[in-house]
């Protein structure tokens, strides 16, 4: 039943996208409501599939069509929901639905709403398709759909020099995508398969040259690093996040960029023999990114730009977990590797919650306070108590304060990182990770410093009239805040299953 429905999570948004595009004006606010409904469909489907998989009733759902079949090339168009893709897709659908709800509520006078939601749904279906795909080419196609849709959204509804910024975003991401494409082509040539789940067995059969595999993996990773905005490939991100329309920033930051981490686990980790050569680079870049992003965030005065740098920093955390997992796999410690990788995936979900709340708050501040410049705010806690609580929960999730999901995810990432570093038994590696852990104080610094400047102290006179946002604006944020708290206290439902699936994924490989 579920497997039959899987394709519809992509088809329905595609159709709805055409509908909103075609009818546009007459639909009015219904454009947004259609987008909410399509993502609700996905929420229902993925809730059921996640539940069934986590309850142990099914191991995975799969629906595969033959797509292009020629004598020497067979391409299958496949969707697969398992213990990893299912919760990730659920998170994306949830964030998309809540962001759409927020857009309908808060951005009522958005021009050309039909086109907006048409592209919005394309963006959504691109991400969902990418998560579910079983084939490298299909993966690439969905990836491109998401990129093009998000480019158009920034180009059209962004602020400031939106065209220029959108082009920068597009070119960077495309350059990365081409690197990834090169990896795909090389895989096809060298391993003779495009099916993601056949890669391990082909590697086992063909016993390929490690150097070539490393080259393939490096090319793919460069593509993913651009998407995750890993130092030094990050410079597209701040401008993009600042100038993109707020709902799109929320989606880009929470859902889209972390998908590269998902893809790393799904695809890159299958090239096991290559991992030992790239893991060190991953860990080093991760630590630099963590510190670099946070250090830049500290001195920002534009709240949105501050969050953009914070996103860069948080992607470093995710990459650290992945790097640790890569190292542990190459040393043969798969359950340790699974802890790091689970931490990364869980951090992706936690960060999605926290960062979506914070980026959506930017919009709330723009509407209620009329600015997003930190130095023009102050004393807002008394005037906007609910907003303040949301901001606390959002930042606490990023800071990894217990009772929020960020705590458990960071705990797992660092457990994996120190664990794998101690496998190598070089004091320097452990020292490096300890430095990374100590550097998390920077997250505290920029978070608490923003909270203090925006929420505490005396309100400047021009803000005397500021009112609390209507609760309907804040509803999507509250849902995410509750989700973050729930997962922080009862992480088991996600971590255990993700962990099992990842472990299975890793043990598939020889």
């Amino acid at each position: 039943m579920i497997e039959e429905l899987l394709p519809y999570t992509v088809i329905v948004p595609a159709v709805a996208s055409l509908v909103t595009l075609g009818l546009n004006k007459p639909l009015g606010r219904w454009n947004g409501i259609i987008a909410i409904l399509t993502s609700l469909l996905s929420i229902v489907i993925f809730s059921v599939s996640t539940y069934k998989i986590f309850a142990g009733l099914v191991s995975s759902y799969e629906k595969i069509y033959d797509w292009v079949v020629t004598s020497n090339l067979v391409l299958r168009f496949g969707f697969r929901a398992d213990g990893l893709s299912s919760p990730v897709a659920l998170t994306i659908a949830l964030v998309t639905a809540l962001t759409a709800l927020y857009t309908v509520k808060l951005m009522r006078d958005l021009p050309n709403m039909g086109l907006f939601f048409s592209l919005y749904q394309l963006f959504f279906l691109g991400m969902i398709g990418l998560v579910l795909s079983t084939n490298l080419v299909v993966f690439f196609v969905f990836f491109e759909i998401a990129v093009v849709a998000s480019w158009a959204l920034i180009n059209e509804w962004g602020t400031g020099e939106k065209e220029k910024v959108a082009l920068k975003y597009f070119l960077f991401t495309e350059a990365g995508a081409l690197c990834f494409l090169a990896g795909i082509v090389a895989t096809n040539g060298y391993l003779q398969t495009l099916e993601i789940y056949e890669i391990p067995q082909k590697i086992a059969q063909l016993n390929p040259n490690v150097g070539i595999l490393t080259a393939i993996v490096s090319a793919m990773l460069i593509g993913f690093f651009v998407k995750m905005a890993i130092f030094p490939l990050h410079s597209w991100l701040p401008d993009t996040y600042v100038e993109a329309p707020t709902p799109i920033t929320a989606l880009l930051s929470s859902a889209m960029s972390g998908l590269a981490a998902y893809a790393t686990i799904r695809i890159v980790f299958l090239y096991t023999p290559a991992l030992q050569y790239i893991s060190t680079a991953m860990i080093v870049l991760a630590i630099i990114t963590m510190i670099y992003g946070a250090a830049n965030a500290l001195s920002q005065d534009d709240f949105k730009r501050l969050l953009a740098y914070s996103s860069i920093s948080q992607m470093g955390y995710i990459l650290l977990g992945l790097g640790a997992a890569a190292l542990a796999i190459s040393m043969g410690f798969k359950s340790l590797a699974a802890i790091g990788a689970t931490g990364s995936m869980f951090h992706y979900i936690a960060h999605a919650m926290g960062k979506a709340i914070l980026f959506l708050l930017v919009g709330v501040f723009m509407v209620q306070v009329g600015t997003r410049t930190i130095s023009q705010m102050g004393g807002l806690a008394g005037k906007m108590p609910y907003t303040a609580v949301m901001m606390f929960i959002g930042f606490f999730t990023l800071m990894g304060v217990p009772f929020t999901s960020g705590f458990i995810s960071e705990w797992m990432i660092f457990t994996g990182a120190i664990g794998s570093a101690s496998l190598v038994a070089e004091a320097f590696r452990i020292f490096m990770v300890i430095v990374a852990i100590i550097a998390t104080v920077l997250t505290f610094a920029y978070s608490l410093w923003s909270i203090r400047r925006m929420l505490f102290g005396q309100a400047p006179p021009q803000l005397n009239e500021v009112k609390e946002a209507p609760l309907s604006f804040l509803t999507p944020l509250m849902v995410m805040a509750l989700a973050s708290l729930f997962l922080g206290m009862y992480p088991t439902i996600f971590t255990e299953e993700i962990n099992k699936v990842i472990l299975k994924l890793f043990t598939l490989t020889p």
Partner: protein
Amino acid sequence: MSLEYPGAWLCWISPMVGAVLTPLFAKINLRVRDYVAVLFSLFAAISASTMIPLLFNATPLFNSESFDWIPSLNVKMGVVVDPLSIIMANIVAWISFLIMVYSLSYMHGEPGLTRYWFFMNFFIGSMLLLVMADNMLLMFFGWEGVGVCSYALIGFWYRDSKEDWLKCWVGEGDEAYPPSHAGMKAFIMTRIGDVCLLASIFVIYAFAGTFSYSELLERIDQWAPTISKAGLLLPAAILFFMGPVGKSAQFPLHEWLPDAMAGPTSVSALIHAATMVKAGVYLVARVLPIFWLAYHVLRISELSAFFTIIAWIGAFTAFLAATQAMVSREIKKVLAYSTVSQIGYMFLALGAGGLLAHGLVEGLTSGMFHLMSHAIFKAALFLSAGAIIHAVESRFMYHMGGLRKYMPLTYVAMWLAALSLAGVPPFSGFWSKETVLAVSWEAGLLGPFVLAVVTAALTVFYTIRMMGLTFHGEKSHRIVELEAEGHKIEEASPVMYVPYAILAVASLGIGVVGWWMEEALHRALSSMTPYAALHSLVPSVQAEVETVSPQIITLPLAIVMLIVGAIPAYFMYVSRKVDPSAIVAKSLLLRTLHTFLFKRWFINKMYYNAFAYPLMSASRGLYRWIEVGGFDRALAGFVSGVVGFASQFRKLQTGFLNYNIIGILMGLIIIALILLKLGGLW
């Protein structure tokens, strides 16, 4: 599902439930909200007390009860029920309850009380969780939970209002901080310790594969030697200790605590007496058996450095903070410095106990005994200080003076507690400080011992100074002014003075039975020795060495120090026969010393100048020079290079049809030639 130790679960769950319910009750009725909040903390205290009978069991007590939580990390949600946790939980829960009762009157009429009760209960719950947790992950929930609550409560008056400067700021001159700054400072500074603690926990996990205390203890012969061989045991142990250093405000992370006085006084009482700063001491006590075993039984000799560092940091901090307390002009800040100083004593005891082969129980006993007596008298002191601040509406002691006539009950109660702090026999503080001195003497830690003895004199001095300035002498100008304005200065309400009167009497009561109390604690804590768990490993340590009782040295010394500190303080501040400011003004050395102490040894200043401000300018520099000046510049350069390169080709696009056709023809010819060549036809 039946629980074997319901009290161990309920004591931390009920305040948390109370916290969550507070906003709901606030919707019903504000008075109901207040009483319900207090009721939940009472429930926690009663739950904790239900565990007390277990202390008198004949069998050694080290039990835990747990449920599956995060199996992939081998983490369970569980509580540990042993003498240490039972004693600690009872101290925390009961003192917290009294502070909650006091808050009913002290915080009456403040705006934002829903927030206050939420965080107070959450604070208590987090603290009890960290006490009861049987593994480090769950412990860290409580650990960081108290951090969050302290942040929220220190910054309770987040409006930083300048009009209420006398009441809700802290410090003066260039070291005056508003509440929201103080809260942030506390959270970030303790976090520095916390991340070190985290790193250490992960390193230990990497080798031991568990976060659970009892498993760490049971498997110590497996993981400790390996981690030691990798050269990581001492670094991990020291990083571990950094967590308690931050939470318990020890040097070098002590600077947040004096500024934490910006919060309401009831919050200060909670932070200092029952929660937060005691967490560090408790955590070290909790892992002390593990490291003690590794040092004395597995003979991992580098750990002696770990214990020595604990003892030295404790003793040095005790001295450092005591000197600052001697000159502070704010009543709460004197108490804050004294907390830092007294906590130093507890660490000294634990460190010394770890060094001694037969000293584990001695160290734990004296550390916990001092923790207990300090918790009681410090809560009493803070609560009475709160009543005084309420009366004169100022935190400065030069706005007080002569208050004994106005507030006789507070006067008596505060003196009882103060004598305990000063270590006057037979108050509880005397006995507990005595045991600390004794165990550090036994451990042969001469330097820390001397510091601790000197600090004893300083403690008496600053205690009497504080009491003298507050209650004795003439009444200050402010009091005169307040009275002229028709503001009556009077005794606090019973809801306020009953809690601190109870505590003050308790500190006398425990002192009277001091010997017996120490014996009882010793007996209860002796089951903390992990002999039972590791019988096979421990043949050699059993032999107890009975040397000359150290009391022969420490007891007279303590009395001498008491007199040395008390006499000058009495004449300067109580009888006011000698004017201290005149003495200081006369000598350049004393003036310099006074400034040095008053400016907190310039350590606070140095932290701002060496870390906080440079970090901000480094961030600005990084953004301006690397991010904008480097990456964005390079990108712009690259783009203009590409555009420039491409525009070179524009010259070819002349637009003349003839040129274009010639070009096409030439191209065709070249292609044709290549094809011919490839086909072998040319």
